[in-house]
């Protein structure tokens, strides 16, 4: 098969599998059908099964990745829409974002010293707690590889989604703000989706926290890189 044909096939398969898992999850809300888990696995499986060379896979699908830029700008709309919550709890949000950001980075930084791994992998770890478009920008400042960071961000999201409810129950967290901010700061997009399942206010707060943590990470990354 020609390269162009394979590239077209990869593009179609990526979009097809993504919407298929999304549709399946809407019908049956079970964890292993969640698009964040199933869609990447299905597409990786497809690429391996058909034996598509990676260069051909990225020929057209990299246009999808380019949409992360405008998507970052689009985060302005939820900030504007939820400005009343920002006005009501400025201190809690500020401290929550700072704590979440620092914990995300410091825990990675400490753990890569406990679990030894190659430096480019260790550097890719540092920005994994913020949303993908921000993380892939920030990881360059730390000397990480954007592709690896994207995978680690995804893993962080899945882990946060799974462990949040038992964790909150165990340490006795009941307030809306604490749940929302912790989910948004520790596991970004997937955490926000989970927070939205817990309650709509949790979801709003999580998405705000995720956006502010992402912005702070991108702006602060050159500075943090000097310290670490």
């Amino acid at each position, binding site marked *: 098969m020609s390269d162009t044909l394979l590239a077209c096939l990869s593009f179609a398969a990526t*979009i097809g599998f993504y919407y298929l898992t999304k549709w399946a999850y809407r019908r049956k809300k079970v964890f292993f059908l969640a698009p964040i888990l199933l869609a990447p696995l299905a597409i990786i499986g497809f690429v391996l099964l058909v034996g598509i060379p990676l260069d051909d896979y990225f020929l057209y699908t990299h246009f999808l990745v380019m949409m992360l830029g405008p998507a970052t*700008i689009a985060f302005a709309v939820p*900030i504007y829409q939820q400005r009343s919550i920002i006005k009501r709890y400025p201190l*809690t949000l500020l401290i929550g974002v700072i704590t979440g950001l620092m914990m995300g980075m410091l825990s990675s930084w400490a753990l890569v010293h406990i679990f030894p791994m190659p430096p480019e992998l260790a550097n890719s770890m540092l920005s994994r707690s913020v949303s993908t478009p*921000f993380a892939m920008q920030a990881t360059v400042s730390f000397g990480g590889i954007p592709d690896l960071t994207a995978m680690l961000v995804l893993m962080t999201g899945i882990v*946060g989604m799974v462990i949040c409810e038992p964790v909150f129950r165990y340490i006795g967290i009941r307030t809306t*703000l604490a749940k929302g901010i912790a989910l948004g700061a520790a596991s970004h997009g997937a955490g926000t989706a989970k927070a939205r399942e817990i309650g709509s206010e949790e979801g709003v707060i999580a998405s705000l926290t995720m956006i502010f943590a992402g912005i702070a990470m991108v702006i602060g990354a050159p500075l943090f890189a000097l310290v670490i």
Partner: protein
Amino acid sequence: MRTLPSSFFHSMFLKKHVFFYCLMQLMALCGLLWLCNQVVAFLHWHIPGSVLGLGILVLLLLTHVVPERAIQAGSSWLLGELLLFFIPPVVSILKYQVFIRDDGWMIAGTVVLGTLSALIVTAWVVDRVYTLEKGINDRRLARASHRENGKNSIGAQNHV
């Protein structure tokens, strides 16, 4: 084979006029990104053009230069399909299979323990700060209503 129900296609395609608005707004966002990238490159700033664009768009919305509905459909589509846009980078882990094979358990351990500690500490800290800030807000509200009551009672006395 059972055919897919129409809800599948609904999840994939928007209504025609919404699609058109989305496309226009998407192009506007891409234009803003391009402009911001030029500015950042020209001024040698260390922030990415997309984050500058985000800041500018928030300002434009707050000053009502851009009405919310002029950008709402496109941006909510972009944010709703965020996962689709980073599937390709995740597929590229096939390039880095050696990391998964050699350090897979280290990666899993770091991600799980890191996320766990971030979740616990953030939730705990926010719980405390929230109680504090709620106290401040409640006191302010109470004082405001007290003043309001005072005024009313004076007015009532004068009336009598």
